[in-house]
């Protein structure tokens, strides 16, 4: 992508501005997608995206410039132009390259570009047919395929030189069930840092039928009652609760500015002793995995909370400087348009001892959130909200009637204390997480959990 001598010249020129750290990130990404509505191809797109970004540190001040034009001349000009805002006469020098051999953690068996698009469209058609055939109430289906193949280069003045090929594929299905006055949706989006072998791992028709089942079930559901009561959140995408309620508050972006409710709490009990949470960017072929992060640091398995005690934040290079903390290999960015910062990779709550049956039967009255939708959080206050895609009431220790339109709200620090049962059935699910450095693939995950009291919004 860029010659080594060019990279050396760019970094050297960047350091001449007086910066004490200079980094070059370059990428070349090929992306393809197919979208179907009701079994007909509606969009088919291919894109080639290329660009580079130069980042300079002056102590804890950072400057970032980027462009599509990856010529040595242009990138040197960006580095110099960016430094206009800074004045420093101190000169730092570039360290020699240290190349570390990183083990490939996402081996790809079938590169997506070696499979014909017509074959990919066929998976989508089969899924659409299966969802449609599930019930006469299914009136619409949307199915989609995404492939991303990204080559990344990161080099910095401290001698880091890292390159990686990253391949991701994802299948999405949405089924809409309609009655005269109502429409309800069910959807899934399994994917991974893997090739077309994704379609050997998952069964697109079963996944589509499951989405259809949710839509049909919710179509007949009554509005969820509002109030404050126990909530049982099932495994898999239920992990979005931790992602939103706590994960974002553990990112150094928020912690370094003292803008997180979890700032200054390392070593303290911040959650129920039943809670252990881990961010692991090294899980083979997982959606949020890579060999190195977007600063060239090898990814790691970081224990964030252990038995309720806060053990670690997610720390990138710049915020690590501000906090005096070690980097954790989880500095990420959507693409060259974004400076990297601390983000989650695959973040999961570790399994506990209760079986799902024990959790349900121990709950007299409450809400069973079988499938979660998305949500968001304000890291400064810890206030979060998220939607329940598929919900049921629990009555007398048994799963009762389905309910729709439920929203869970609360504050991260409080909800962590209120987790009073943790199941033994961990599962991960895929999401796109949007934050300061763009939209990135992350896994969320957890076993079934019970929160003893939660505010549930609904219309019943």
């Amino acid at each position: 992508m860029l010659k080594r001598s060019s990279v050396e010249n760019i970094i050297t020129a960047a350091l001449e501005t007086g910066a004490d750290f200079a980094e070059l990130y370059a990428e070349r990404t090929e992306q393809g997608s197919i979208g179907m509505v009701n079994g007909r191809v509606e969009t088919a797109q291919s894109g080639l995206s290329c660009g580079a970004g130069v980042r300079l540190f002056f102590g804890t001040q950072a400057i970032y410039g980027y462009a599509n034009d990856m010529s040595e001349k242009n990138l040197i000009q960006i580095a110099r132009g960016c430094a206009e805002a800074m004045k420093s006469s101190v000169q730092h020098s570039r360290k020699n390259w240290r190349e570390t051999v990183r083990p490939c953690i996402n081996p790809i068996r079938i590169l997506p570009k070696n499979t014909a698009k017509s074959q990919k469209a066929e998976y989508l058609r089969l899924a659409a047919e299966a969802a449609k055939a599930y019930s006469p109430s299914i009136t619409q289906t949307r199915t989609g395929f995404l492939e991303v193949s990204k080559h990344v280069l990161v080099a910095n003045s401290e001698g880091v030189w890292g390159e990686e090929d990253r391949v991701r594929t994802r299948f999405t299905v949405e089924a809409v069930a309609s009655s005269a006055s109502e429409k309800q949706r069910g959807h899934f989006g399994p994917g991974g840092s893997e090739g077309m072998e994704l379609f050997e791992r998952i069964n697109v028709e079963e996944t589509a039928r499951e989405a259809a089942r949710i839509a049909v079930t919710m179509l007949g559901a009554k509005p969820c009652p509002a109030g404050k009561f126990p909530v049982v959140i099932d495994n898999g995408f239920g992990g979005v609760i931790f992602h939103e309620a706590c994960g974002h508050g553990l990112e150094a972006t928020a912690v370094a500015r003292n803008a997180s409710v979890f700032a200054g709490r390392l070593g303290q009990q911040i959650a129920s002793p039943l809670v252990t949470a881990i961010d692991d960017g090294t899980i083979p072929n997982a959606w949020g995995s890579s060999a190195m992060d977007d600063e060239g640091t090898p990814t790691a398995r970081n224990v964030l909370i252990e038995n309720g005690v806060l053990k670690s934040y997610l720390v990138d290079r710049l915020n690590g400087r501000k906090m005096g903390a070690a980097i954790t290999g989880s500095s990420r960015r959507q693409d060259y348009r974004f400076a990297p910062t601390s983000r989650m990779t695959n973040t999961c709550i570790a399994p506990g001892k209760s079986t799902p049956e024990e959790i349900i039967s121990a709950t007299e009255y409450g809400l069973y959130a079988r499938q979660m939708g998305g949500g968001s959080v304000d890291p400064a206050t810890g206030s979060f909200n998220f939607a329940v895609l598929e919900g049921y009431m629990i009555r007398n220790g048994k799963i009762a009637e389905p309910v729709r339109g439920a929203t869970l709200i609360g504050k991260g620090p409080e909800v962590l204390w209120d987790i009073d049962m943790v199941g033994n059935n961990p599962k991960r699910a895929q999401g796109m997480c949007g934050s300061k450095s763009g939209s990135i693939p992350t896994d969320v995950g957890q076993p079934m959990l019970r929160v003893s009291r939660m505010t549930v919004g609904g219309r019943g």
Partner: protein
Amino acid sequence: MERNEFFEQLAKAAETEGFTDCETYYQQADSFEVLVLEGKVSHYENSRTEGVSFRGNIGGRTGYACTEQLAADAIPFLVNAAKENAALLPPEDAEELYPGEKEYPVLQGIHEGLERLSVSEKIDAAKRMEQAALAGAEEVALLDYCVLGTVRVETVIRNSRGLDVSFAQNYATAFVSAIARKGDETKTGSYFWKDQDWNGFDPEKTGREAARRAAMQLGAASVPSGKYDAVLYGEAMVALLGAFCGIFYAENVQKGFSLLGGKLGQNIASTAVTLRDDALLTGGYASTPFDSEGVSGRNKAVIENGTLRTFLYNRKSAKADGAESTGNGFKASLTAPVKTACTNFYLQKGTKSRDELFEALQNGLFITDLMGLHAGTNTVSGDFSLSASGFLIENGKLGRPVEQITIAGNFYRLLEAIEDVANDMYFSSGGKGSPSILVRGLDIAGM
């Protein structure tokens, strides 16, 4: 490669490969952003990006592909990928390229004052915002963000049928988010400014307003669950408009993703509701002389005094309905196909002040913020269940702050239930706007 040369080579290669018609949609963006923290530049960004989206007709089908690299080796990629993509698409979806119009509306895109602004002037303004925010309220000792940016975007669309349009536009944005703390309680408040006229920018006001908004939420508590009458501030209503604007897109109506099918000419909202989509609004954040298909921008009443007047069309959905495009065919990004999008999409304001609405309400809630829009809304059924915050209204006056509540309802019902609209106006940076509105009987979950 120089862009005109690239367009020509691409057109030539496409023709050789068998494309009968082709189009290049080009966009170039220059952007600058500075983030200030504690009187110093904490982050600074400068960029130039460009890209071309190609579409062409081959064998009676239309294919798309795009590139950010205007280099010789991108040309075979575009042509081959577009050919493979075209083969997947049904021939009945083939897109006829637009030859363009004789005349286009003239909008002032480039403001010279902004072009001439120096880096140090921008940094200085950002620092003044920060100072004003920190001095704006006793409880504010820290800012979440203090950002100032300028953007220049140029769009050029050319095709083999004769379309050749271009538009360049620049603007500046400022955003401050302040953190207010008292005891264990933390609140954030934010304020933004966006305009083409730098002289109209008041950095102190932007900072102060963010601080004021954060501090005034301190002391917030929930309310008992139940049905409440409420005034929704424009910003909260705009959040709902943003989530549900898709129900007015003809393409969603045609696919059954909207419940408005067959409702043209019928009353779908209270008579207080007039909803416009105006591409030509003076000073509008989403003003544009043409859409991504080259169709000229215009001003439409979508709902007029409660009556549904038109859907928003791109050329494809217009053809399906035997209608004319309303100039709402937009690409969300270079890689995105032309879909439907709003321009300046706003609820027209009324005559009463917000205080008069409070007076009419007597007791209820003033909802200022809604959260969780991307998850707590069902864009098909219109249902929403969202985390909200705001203030109590007691005896017609603004009372204590309210937090940790959810507001649940249905957007279609909400349009019918709007009793009155105020004469204030809030516009989001994307061009969605609303005055404060008065609605009765919202379902609120709280304590």
